[in-house]
């Protein structure tokens, strides 16, 4: 018996197949693109292929992320808040606080020792799209997303970036460039600005350790350092952080099966 979690995000779609011993049997990661329904199906099929298991063995599938309602073949949908909480607590049992910097929203979640969501806070309108904030900065400076993290680490004199707004930060960076400021100093300033804002969000739900940093942006070492500096605590980061939502969804699916829930399709068609 296997279960699956399919996380359809604004930029990438991910899936995780889990077996009944909670071992990850297969994963997938691909750009969501313009057709969301197809992206969900492809993510699920690729994860199944990686797990070398057959679709018929899937006892329960849960969709999450912005496109969760488009996971047509799923048995249920759960928001990414619930899934990131479940996934982070599974990988690091001492987790009490989760920080997820996603493409659209930044989330801070407080959980109980059993992984229940006790409180969460999300970014303010003007601080939306933190993932895109980094994307916009990399674009203006002419670097890739993977390069800006390491580049920001060797800054001597970080420049204070005052703009919260993704659109206006580009003109601020262009002005600093035009003044001949060093690229790594600007990048360090950008990472610290996001670190400050995210720390403010975490403080709203309380910075009780241990803190787990999830989502694609956590692969950026410069962002991990900036967040740890602003939070004043070290953070867990897992190489699986991009699949945290899909893993959490799969874990919840497994708990549903263990709790007696029956696979909708096996039970003869959609509810």
């Amino acid at each position, binding site marked *: 018996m296997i279960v699956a979690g399919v996380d359809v995000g604004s930029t990438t779609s991910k899936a995780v197949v889990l077996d009944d011993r909670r071992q990850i049997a297969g994963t997938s990661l691909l750009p*969501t693109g313009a057709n969301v329904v197809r992206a969900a199906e492809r993510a699920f099929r690729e994860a199944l292929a990686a797990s070398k298991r057959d679709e018929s063995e899937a006892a329960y599938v849960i969709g999450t992320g912005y496109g969760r309602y488009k996971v047509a073949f799923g048995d249920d949908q759960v928001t990414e808040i619930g899934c990131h909480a479940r996934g982070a607590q599974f990988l690091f049992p001492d987790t009490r606080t989760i920080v997820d910097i996603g493409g659209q929203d930044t989330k801070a979640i407080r959980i109980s020792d059993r992984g229940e969501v006790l409180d969460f806070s999300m970014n303010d309108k003007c601080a939306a799209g933190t993932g895109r904030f980094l994307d916009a900065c990399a674009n203006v400076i002419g670097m890739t997303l993977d390069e800006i993290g390491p580049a920001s680490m060797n800054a001597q004199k970080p420049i204070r970036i005052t703009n919260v707004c993704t*659109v206006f930060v580009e003109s601020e960076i*262009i002005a600093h460039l035009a003044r001949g400021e060093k690229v790594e100093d600007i990048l360090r300033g950008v990472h610290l600005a996001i670190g400050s804002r995210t720390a403010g969000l975490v403080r709203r739900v309380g910075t009780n350790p241990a803190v787990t940093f999830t989502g694609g942006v956590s692969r950026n070492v410069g962002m991990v350092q900036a967040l740890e500096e602003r939070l004043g605590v070290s953070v867990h980061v897992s190489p699986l952080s991009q699949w945290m939502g899909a893993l959490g969804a799969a874990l919840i699916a497994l708990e549903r099966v263990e709790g007696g829930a029956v696979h909708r399709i096996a039970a003869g068609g959609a509810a």
Partner: protein
Amino acid sequence: MITAGVDIGAGTTKAVLMDDAGRILVKVSERSGARLDAAGSRALAAVLEKAGLRREDIAYVAATGYGRYQLPERDIQITEVTCHARGASYLFPGTRCLLDIGAQSTRAIRVDDAGRVMRFRMNDRCAAGAGRFLERVARALEVPLDDLGPMSLHSADPQAISSICAVLAESEVISLVTSGKATEDILMGAHLSIADRALALLRQVGVDGEVTVTGGVVLNRGMLTALERRLGRTVNASPDTVYAGAIGAALLGFVRLRKLGEAR
């Protein structure tokens, strides 16, 4: 007499030479690169070389654009709004209002019959980023930037995108994508939302009379169609308007020369 107009933008730098009969002798356009001060001097040297002239043959050099203070050879620096207005009126003499839609900022300018600025208004911080917004919409929809305009023209049912803010508008685009709306309908919706914001700016300075559009957006058929649909009449647009800033600077050079001549 010959004057030079050099428009040093964040992306590209343009330079033109004009004679006192108001003819454009020669024009160049180059990438600005990271060092803005070098960009201006490089463009000036290129336009002189193309015309087979030397700096001494030029009676007056006017700089404009983002890097207008960084051209050592200049006699004066003038802002891009003032130069754009004069240059666009040179290219389209009937112009009464000018809409300049760039990557970051949108400008609405009311001009008199001689191309002088009467009133102008620039976008609010929250309504910034028209060009940049289109680039990100192109990436979200996996459509090459140059196809944005043509593709949006096939739209049968444009999707309304209401947010003023480009970031929130992008989230709306992503929600439309996740709810399976047709790509061309989303694209036309995106163009119309930019057109609405730009025309709202223009209405604040007065939208009656001939409208001329400048800025990178001029090359995008979809954007011009969206503007004309919302405006209810045609607009002037031509690839030459990308030189409007440099042309305006050169023409204003002659205005200063006449004033200095009278002063002596």
